[in-house]
């Protein structure tokens, strides 16, 4: 347990300091609330309409697809580092991996998930 005491100390200090800063600004700061000041964005365009708008589901699909393929491609980095050692084994494994990805890609494509309209 000993080795974790440092962490505990940091935890305590970090919290204390955060509380301190927020508290200080609360007590010391001057507040003159105005309508403009209370808006979410003090600058930029004026906010009109409700905040909880519907966003087209297509964004989500794109986001998800991006995430999936992105993460899966990420897998290739560590592979690339050790590919010399893995030799044929690594090559074949990655080949299979990419084929599976490809099937997914074809599936997504043919399903029409990549079309905006």
């Amino acid at each position, binding site marked *: 347990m000993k080795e974790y005491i440092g962490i505990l100390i940091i935890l305590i200090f970090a919290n204390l300091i955060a509380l301190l800063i927020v508290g200080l600004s609360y007590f010391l700061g001057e507040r003159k609330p105005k309508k403009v000041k209370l808006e979410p964005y003090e600058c930029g365009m004026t906010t009109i309409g409700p905040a909880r708008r519907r966003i087209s589901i297509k964004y989500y699909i794109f986001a998800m697809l991006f995430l999936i393929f992105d993460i899966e491609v990420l897998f290739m980095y560590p592979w690339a580092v050790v590919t010399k050692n893995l030799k044929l*084994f*690594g090559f*074949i494994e990655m080949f299979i991996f990419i084929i599976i990805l490809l*099937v997914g890609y*074809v*599936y997504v494509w043919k399903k029409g998930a990549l079309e905006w309209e």
Partner: protein
Amino acid sequence: MDVKFPVDELILIAPEIILCGFGLLLLLIEVFLKTKSKSFLGILTLVSAGSALVFVLKLSSFSTDLFFGLYSLDSLGSLTKGLILVMLILVVIMSLRYVEREEVISGEYYPLLLFSTLGMMIMVSSKNLLTIFVGLELMSLSIYILVGLFRDNLKAAEASLKYFLLGAFASAFLVYGIALLYGSTGSLDIKGYLEVIAKGDTSTVLIIGVALIAVGFAFKIALVPFHMWTPDVYEGAPTSITAFMAAGVKSAAFVTFLRVFYTAFLPLIKQWGDILWLLAVITMSYANLTALVQQNIKRMLAYSSIAHAGYILVAFVTGEKILSSSIIYYLVAYTFMNVGAFSCVILMGRKGEENLDIDSYAGLSARHPFVAFCLTIFLLSLTGVPPLAGFMAKFYVFSTAIKAGYVWLAIIGVLNSVVAAYYYLRVIMYMYFRDPVKEIGRIDLSPSYILVSLICIFFLIYTGILPRELMLLAEGAVSVFF
């Protein structure tokens, strides 16, 4: 460091390769052909499951570690894989008609079934926690989708989302536990933990890891209080998927749970035995009591499946390696009675009208004696009435508890099965002694349901009267713990 490609080991995972290949293939066929009739996909699924089963049987005599210890082939894994594949075949047979009836548009139904089966198979045949986790996630993710496959059905969507959220939650526990174990021992191989524990090195971190892994598995096998998702999900899911989950997920998760705890953490049984003892008692009692007041047969069966997990846990907490064969026996019997019962539930429904309330079953014996008879057999087996397999299963489990000195646990278990008899027999009573309350229309006695029911009935009676062969198989399976 050079790594040689273990080509010769590929044949040993032929069943998994077949399922994976067919799953991908079906996915492509689905998007390219866009056939209206899905039974073609169903037949292909049957072919793949059948050929995988053949390979599992052929490979069942092998026992070896594969791929640098990430994967393994042994009797426990083979038996469970065989069971899961048989279960898959039964579910697919009944799906042939069910999918058609419910007009499922998504062709992903069968590929997802294959993928989740693949996940189960990976899960039960690995001694490496990471591989186990990958298998478990593959299984779970596929099933989250399957549960919500009827998108128009609000209940299904709700069930799917709930299952996904809570499942992710539980996975977090599991993976956190794995991380802690890795942190404290530097190993992901369950044999490795045994070495560390055998040295007497039981750090707090390791114990927390064990506890969290237990929580993760407890979610999958639905132990109280990690069971809350079960009734909602079982009710909302397409009934064939409910059968698939009740039988497959539970068996796979239980076998993995058994493998991990009996291989690695048996020396710590003093620690986790008590808490699982408590969970078993709470699970059985809570589930049975709540099942008493259910009016919906799928919810009732959901609670019943929770209760059965409790019964199995009774044998689990004993920590007796030899006697743990009773767990395997129970899982096999349980699989068949559950699939059978759900096939009858499917039979009762029609498109858009599932007839799940118990009133639909009133007077069934007069109108559809065959359906009533089948359901009666399954319910009696679930109750544990001889000569059906359900009885032998309960008998083995409780006698295991008694042999290991857990007399009180066995008594609580038996009392619980008495309570359980009430809600099973109530359905039978409705079918045979009540007059029909409502018109349920014509029942679709398709051969695909009847075949499943008959296979299950045959199996239940056969292994109930001659339990010896299956018991020997189960004993062979648990011999991996020695």
